[in-house]
């Protein structure tokens, strides 16, 4: 066998193993990323979808965050504008977790209609000014003062 052929076989084996690892770990660790509306649509279509691990991306309803005694348990609601989902989360919340921020909660929807989160990521809207027409500055005191003078 020519060394070139041998190398190609070896390479195919390496790439095959890599592809196999990728495929299986996507199968095992990939999770659905849904909005509250998509989540409720899926549960309506397939009640067994309850208890499937998912991630839900939504915005925290202002004023809904309750912190339980002990400090590591939270109850709050998230919304995508159409659907609102109550969430309970046990763990440490990131600094960026406050009213009206976009969050990703990972966990499963309980049969009680509450989302039990084991993971809470808050996206920091101010880290990159990505949203088109982001007019964050309009909420600053400087802007309001200037606007009231004008």
């Amino acid at each position: 066998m020519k060394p070139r052929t041998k190398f190609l076989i070896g390479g195919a084996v390496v790439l095959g193993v890599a592809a196999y690892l990728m495929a299986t770990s996507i199968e095992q660790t990939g999770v659905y990323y849904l909005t509250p509306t998509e989540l409720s649509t899926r549960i309506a279509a397939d009640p067994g979808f309850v208890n499937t691990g998912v991630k839900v991306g939504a915005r925290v309803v202002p004023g809904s965050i309750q912190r339980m005694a002990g400090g590591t348990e939270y109850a709050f609601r998230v919304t995508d504008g159409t659907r609102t989902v109550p969430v309970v989360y046990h763990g440490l919340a990131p600094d960026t977790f406050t009213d009206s921020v976009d969050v990703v909660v990972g966990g499963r929807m309980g049969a009680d209609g509450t989302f039990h989160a084991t993971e809470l990521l808050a996206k920091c809207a101010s880290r990159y000014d990505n949203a088109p027409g982001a007019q964050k500055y309009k909420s600053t005191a400087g802007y309001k003062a200037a606007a009231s003078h004008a």
Partner: protein
Amino acid sequence: MNALTLIGELSLWVGLLMAAWSTTVSFAGGALHRDDLVDSGVRGLYATFAMVVLASIGLWTALLTRDFSVAYVATHISANMPNLYVFTAFWSGQQGSMLFWALILSMYSTIAISTSRSRNRELIPWATGTLSAILLFFLATNCFKANPFVRLDFIPLDGSGMNPQLQSPAMAIHPPNLYLGYVATAVPFAFAIAALFTRRLNAEWLGVVRRWTLISWFFLTVGIILGMWWAYLELGWGGYWAWDPVENSSFLPWLTDTAFLHSIMIQEKRGMLRKWNVVLVVLSFLLSIFGTFITRSGVVESVHSFAQSPVGTWFGAFFFLCVGITVYLVGTRLKDLEATAELESMVSREAAFLYNNLLLIGIAFAVFWGTVFPIISEWVRGTKITVGPPFFNAVNVPLALLLLALTGVGPLIAWRKASVSNLKRQFAGPAIFGLIVGIALVIAGMRSFYATMAYALGGFVIGTITQEFYKGVRARRTIHEESLIPAFLHLIGRNRRRYGGYIVHVGIVLLFSAFAGLAFKTDNEVTLRTGQEFDVRDPYGHKWRFISQGVSTSETRDRETIGITLQTFRDNKPMGFITSEKRQYFDTQRNPLFQPLTAAGIRTTPKLDTYVVLAGVQNTGSAAGDNEATLRVTFNPLVMWVWTGGYIMLIGGLIVMWPQAERRRTQAGYAAVMPPAHAGVADIPVPV
């Protein structure tokens, strides 16, 4: 409005015209073989650089004079911010960072073209044209889609400030380093396009390409390490790498740069891998564009789809245009890229390097796939599916361990076909050493397979490098009768590429050792009142005790700080105090700015970082001190070696990059035909 800002805004538009001119006449000059057009194109490129410098001065002036009539200034800084961070706000937003890209690109282009103009005459028009075209794209984006000079129709009293998380020295220099790394890939890309166009695909274009890939690799390394350091200190989750899409996108061009820096040696020595190297050069550039796009467009950060960002469509179009041109050029020039030699044996340096490339690209592909998988799954299946760290670890850890093994094999195995005696001579000692390391760790109680493998293979690689230095120094001591330290320094100095490379490998081994330590990381959550204590064992089995000294608050001009101090003991021996803080920043009117900021309390030793984060404080009564603090205490083994390994890689990189290295090497060739001379003569260039 400052006059410099006005000049800057105008210069941006003039720069756009200059880039358009330079693109047009450079390509025309190349196609028509008209030197006057080519010269004009090169001058147009230099002029573009001058214009972009003026535009940048304009934006910096607007920032530093706190000219809040400029929207970019009003949305990125506030009046009470220190000047250092006002200066760095230049690249903290989309518009500014696009201008920053253009600034670096025009500077690099000017340097690259002016230094290689006499050497690569045939390539210059096409390289200049390509670089100008890329500049044209960035300047057009700047002018039409992300203009940093857009005015507000009123002047706010203050701006919205910068997230305090970004106000850290590491963050001040992290983005420019990444950009310096990203943008440097444009130069090899331009020369690759030029070489393809002109079908001058022999060795001449490779010098420039290798040099600029090294520059890219170096700055990406600096940027990535700084980013890890910043995440570890400021984000408070106890780690330094989360496989976040933005992190991944800086890692991708680093991987292809690394692959190229290895495979180029095969082309230089054996004339093989010529197509592959072109592909790698192009990939690095495309991945840099992809990285800038991911970081800046918010595609993944905001989990929005591509088109919703204002620059998204432009970037998408540019990206696919570059892909199309390259595919066409490579496809029509396959014959010119035929290898001049064939692989002779699987047990050879060529084969080791081929597998090194395969693994690097495999890792890059896995990282890319995991990063874009949510987007792809949404296209294909209509549902967004995300993958997290378990995916990246499952795929990359085994590939990376194989790569680590090759780090030891590649540099020492013989070219063409290694003999049994070559293998024995080079690898017997290091292999035994690695085996001893592995067995010792298992006896000591290490049970993680991957971690044990990492240390055993690390031992093997260190063994090979030590052996190389030992042999080299011994030879110099015999031949040149030098003492130990001069022999060591001369060894590196006379073969900078080789021994600098070994030093980079030492850094890599240290990084792998530190990553393997992650397998033993432990996390504890605890709630403590003043005076309460918490006992826990660290991964080495030592018993730690943390005693809360109470919560304190303090206020300064721009922030309020809540802190907790813990007295610590290890095996009943006092280990000092750890203080962890949470800060809330305010604007000038004491309105809270952004979210609170965590400043983790970290006690670092070579073996272990003790990392304390104050998650929150709850009042339990009305009196002062009636509170309990929620803490997370993380034991992070070997984190210090991430930074140490990073520094060592950079030192190795500098040794390889040092310009002297190239001149010396050619002189070594001259010296071979010269009669033995006294020291000093070899330093005089000999014309031939």
